[in-house]
């Protein structure tokens, strides 16, 4: 009799919990695995791609996992009609990666029926699949059927068509040949997943092989000369199974998360940065999750020798991503939210059994309330915050005046992320194209060209902005502000497609003469990087004319400011903001102007994105051609002692001082008067 998956899974997890150390976070008693294809046959026999859904589904309920994973869905289950959600640009179709336009990637998923085709689903997978765990929109069609069964019909449909890079026209996509991307368990659960090989397969459109390629470093598979993958019989056990050791199954490590989310650095090698979107959060926010001391990095940081703090104190204290971002139904971490827990109950002892959890582990992970405000919004506020682990009051009341008020109005990160040491993206300008046919990107926290080892990196102070939390409170926290400039146009209005931008800007490999004529300030016939800016009416008009010439209707420049909240890169107490006058002084850190853009395209204004939980009370202004934002706390009803002035308080104070002086004077005069009278009477 075959044991039930639940029993096997439960036993394995129970033993794993009993013996495994969270540090090693391994699964020492995971049974050997038989790698199966989508038909349930052993891949050793069939030679077909490994199906994680079927292989892991032998014991784990992979369907449940896929349905309970934002990493799989990425907005697929939250789709809406374009223009149907207030505050959201009319070209967005979901709050997640699958449908939300983002300036960093720029390309946009085409809405069914839309004439201007940009990305089909297959294109989306090839472009965005590097940061997607597979499954969801990479596996299922809109109607819930498998993508791999789709066949192109007469009508252009983003689900069955993809953009031909040569012609720029949509052509049928052969899903039967490419297969679909299954939810890839290996990506997060292998100690050494071959993510590069996985991405190669995705970029090449060989979707079905993506999971198999992830096994590239296990010795179980080798890439063949023709690009396919073959199984190494010698690496398998005699019965065709694969041991845990060979597969390298682990609980997800921070490094696994870092594959998509940003730089997670381990080991003694000095920290280096790529500034690429493969280090997504690092490039966007300058955040590095590493225990290494900042001064020991390979970066040319200003005042480096004094930076003897770790990149992130939690990494230095051995906290890993999954310690905070836990599975929602993990019985070890499960804690019911205050808002849904009955008031008489401080702790609900009932929770899923370990066996149940292992069979059906929710892959929705607890999260905070990030400024993006769009990613997995339904999970907002499920994570333990700083104060759930740290007794902040106990630590701060010794020296911090009015600690309760500080903690009520400020996120801990406000003081504990006082500075970001790595550069972060400041602006992404898609109104111009570089010779690489990408946007002009500027970073903050750098004194020169990014990537040049001689460039000094002073880092930057994040801007403090109010966050409107789900519980109704407003707390201030540190943010980076990423400004995007882009051409929008057409009917209905959409960001202008890269194909049209390229057509407007280039003739072959050279810039179009009209563009050069307008932008070439030094007259050398070439466009240097510094000349790539549409900061005058004439320049903007020239490019607009080019866009109109290639068929874009009514193009205009639009600007958005995307707030990105900073919750990592946390500094230990000794490096946190401790001086009162940092905030409570005329030159308050809370009101320091924050650069939004090093130039402003002519006639353009940048506005805060509408789907964030962040507000920007204050004003934007330009100085020497640069765009700044200056926070004004009083604009959101905040009074900062030492910085702000309230007229009535000043008036009361003046009255009190003058009144006191007058009182003293009157008292003295009366005393003198009475003394004289007494002396006169005595004489």
């Amino acid at each position, binding site marked *: 009799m075959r044991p039930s998956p639940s029993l096997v899974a439960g036993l394995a997890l129970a033993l794993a919990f009993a013996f495994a*150390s*969270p*540090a*090693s976070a391994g699964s020492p008693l995971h049974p050997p695995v038989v790698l199966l294809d989508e038909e349930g046959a052993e891949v050793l026999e069939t030679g077909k791609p490994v199906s994680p859904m079927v292989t892991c589904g032998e014991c784990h309920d992979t369907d449940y996992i896929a349905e309970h994973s934002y990493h799989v869905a990425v907005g697929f289950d939250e789709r809406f009609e374009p223009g149907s959600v207030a505050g959201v640009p009319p070209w967005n179709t979901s709050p997640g990666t699958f449908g939300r336009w983002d300036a960093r990637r720029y390309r946009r998923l085409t809405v069914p029926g839309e004439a201007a085709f940009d990305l089909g689903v297959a294109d989306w997978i090839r472009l965005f699949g590097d940061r997607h765990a597979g499954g969801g929109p990479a596996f299922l069609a809109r109607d819930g059927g498998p993508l791999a069964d789709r066949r192109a019909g007469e009508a252009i449909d983003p689900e069955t068509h993809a953009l031909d890079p040569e012609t720029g026209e949509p052509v049928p996509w052969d899903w039967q040949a490419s297969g679909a991307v299954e939810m890839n368990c290996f990506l997060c659960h292998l100690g050494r997943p071959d993510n590069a090989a996985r991405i190669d397969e995705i970029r090449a459109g060989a979707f079905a092989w993506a999971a198999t390629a992830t096994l590239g470093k296990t010795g179980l598979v080798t890439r063949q000369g023709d690009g396919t993958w073959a199984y190494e019989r010698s690496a398998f056990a005699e019965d065709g199974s694969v041991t845990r050791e060979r597969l390298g199954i682990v609980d997800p*490590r921070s490094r696994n998360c870092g594959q998509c989310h940003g730089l997670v650095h*381990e*080991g*003694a090698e000095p920290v280096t940065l790529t500034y690429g979107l493969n280090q997504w959060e690092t490039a966007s926010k300058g955040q590095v999750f590493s*225990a290494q*001391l900042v001064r020991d990095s390979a970066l040319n940081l200003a005042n480096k020798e004094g930076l*003897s703090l*770790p990149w992130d104190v939690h*990494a*230095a*204290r*051995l906290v890993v991503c999954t310690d905070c971002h836990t599975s929602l139904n993990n019985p070890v971490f499960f804690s019911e939210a205050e808002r849904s827990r009955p008031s008489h109950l401080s702790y609900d002892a009932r929770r899923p059994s370990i066996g149940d959890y292992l069979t059906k582990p929710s892959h929705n992970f607890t999260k905070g309330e990030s400024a993006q405000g769009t990613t997995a919004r339904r999970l907002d506020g499920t994570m333990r915050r700083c104060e759930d682990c740290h007794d902040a009051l106990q630590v701060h009341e010794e020296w911090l005046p009015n600690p309760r008020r500080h903690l009520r109005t400020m996120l801990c990160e406000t003081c504990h992320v006082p500075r970001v040491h790595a550069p972060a993206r400041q602006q992404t300008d898609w109104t111009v194209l570089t010779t690489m046919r990408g946007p002009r990107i500027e970073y903050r926290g750098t004194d020169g060209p990014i990537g040049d080892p001689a460039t000094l990196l002073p880092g930057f102070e994040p801007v403090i902005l109010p966050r409107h939390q789900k519980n109704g409170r407003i707390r201030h926290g540190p943010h980076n502000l990423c400004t995007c400039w882009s051409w929008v146009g057409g009917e209905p209005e959409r960001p202008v497609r890269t194909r049209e931008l390229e057509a407007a800007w280039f003739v072959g490999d050279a810039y179009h003469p009209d563009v050069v004529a307008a932008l070439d300030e030094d007259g050398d016939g070439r466009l240097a990087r510094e000349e790539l800016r549409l900061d005058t009416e004439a320049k903007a008009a020239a490019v607009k004319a080019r866009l109109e010439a290639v068929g874009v209707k009514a193009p205009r420049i639009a600007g958005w400011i995307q707030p990105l909240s900073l919750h990592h890169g946390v500094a230990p107490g000794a490096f946190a903001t401790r001086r009162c006058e940092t905030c409570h002084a005329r030159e308050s850190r809370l009101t320091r102007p924050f650069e939004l853009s090093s130039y402003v395209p002519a006639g353009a204004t940048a506005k805060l994105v509408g789907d964030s939980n962040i507000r920007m009370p204050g004003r934007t202004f330009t100085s020497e051609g640069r765009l700044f934002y200056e926070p004004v706390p009083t604009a959101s009803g905040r009074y900062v002692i030492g910085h702000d002035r309230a007229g009535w308080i000043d008036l009361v104070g003046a009255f009190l001082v003058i009144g006191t002086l007058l009182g003293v004077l009157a008292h003295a005069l009366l005393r003198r008067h009475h003394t004289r009278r007494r002396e006169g009477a005595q004489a």
Partner: protein
Amino acid sequence: MGGTVGSPPLSCGNAVMTVRTITVLISLVAFVGILFGLVVVAGSTTDRSPNDPWTHVPVKLAPVEHTQFFEGTFEDGPSVTRACLGCHEHAAEHVMRTSHWSWAGEDAVDPLSGEPIRIGKKNLQNNFCISIAGNWPRCTSCHVGYGWRDGTFFETAGPEQVDCLVCHDRSGQYQKAATGAGHPAKGVDLLAAARSVGRTTRASCGTCHFKGGGGDGVKHGDLDETMYFPPERVDVHMGKHDLVCADCHKTEDHRILGRLLPPDRAEGTRVNCTDCHGEAPHDQDRLNSHVKTLACQTCHIPTFAVETGTKMWWDWSKAGLEGDEQGIAERLTHEIQQDPSAREGMPAGVVAMFERVGSDPDLWTHYSKKKGLFLIARRQVPEYRWYACTTQRYLPGEALADGEVAVINRPNGGARDPNAKIWPFKIHRGRQPYDLRDGHLLTPHVFGAGGYWTAFDWDLALRTGAEAAGIGFSGEFGWRTTEMYWPQNHMVQDKEYSLGCTDCHGRGGRMDWKGLGFTGDPAFQGDRRQMDLLRDGESDR
């Protein structure tokens, strides 16, 4: 009416005003005085609170100028000593009671005769130059005396043979002859040296202790000539705070605190970090809780041999090869890297280091026809062992236990020993001669006529060496891999450069937790107070 010329007559009201003014003035002066006093007291308390390590550093009195005490010339070292003893009449007596003089300190039982003996540098073996027996004139150039030429020295040596200058000279030109049995080198101006005497300096100690093992930094790993004037990054005490050796190694009647390898409990004779810094020196409870399990040195000496290389492997079996020494070193290194048979008997850690020679700038090899092949390393991560601050000692003539590696001074302690803490060690490994038939380590006679360094005849060197050491030699010898433990105490780093959590805990940490007896990383499995987490039989490493 009354008064004096020039003084207005005091009215009653004026007198009251004057008295009031004076009272106010006195009060003001008193107030300012009290305030000033409070500030001074507060200032002094802040500077020298009871927890301030500086309160434990000896206050140095001004030294007595000795120039006027000495005239004429001194023939030799003992004549200087006689002059010193003219005033410091008990000084030599004191010195002769110390191990600096006797090179012996602990009681043990002679494995050959069964008689009680006193052991020390005088009669023990190590895995550097192995032993002083038979090699006295060379080795005793670091003895705090004059004339130790053979095994009969202590039978005749008197107070005038104590060398006062080797510790108290401040002229900077005094030195002992390298092979002169402790006598001063030729050309030393003894009068200048005698006139210069004063407190000991770093050079007083360093001239011998920085060159233990026969050269700069050879032996200890945490002591070398960079410690004369170390930058802060080499040693925080001597670099940043300008301490000298005697600030910690406090001395009374020439008894100097600090014993590196005591064979039994030695309370009161050790220098401990806690002498100055207390048992809870950190401002975090988590760090202070480590103090029960870790020596301070474990975190605060993250690497040893910070700037100067120290010997990690000394292979006597390769001595005697003719040819270009650099070329031989490269050839032997290449063989070890390429040929498994050349690695036979070498500990895995040593092999791993040899494999990195050429690619790691902190590792290199050196060859000497007289001494054999060396592996030298810089900026090395220590190895960690439980250590109760006492060590076992291999006694000359003792048959070695079976096994690949013979341990010359195994540190005592284990996870279950409450006196033991995890401690950083330099472990010096090497290959040295041993008696194939009787199974004990041999002492080669290397220096002087008939010594290996002149005759290059192992049989002769081992036979005469055994005679000098009083141990047997069957005539058959082989090469035995040995290791020797050197606890690390110097080259201390401040908190900025000490170990952090992830250096030891988590994946890639430097600690071999299982080797130390834990079931796993104690950050997650609990520390040794939860004794059931220790693995039976494997905790005494």
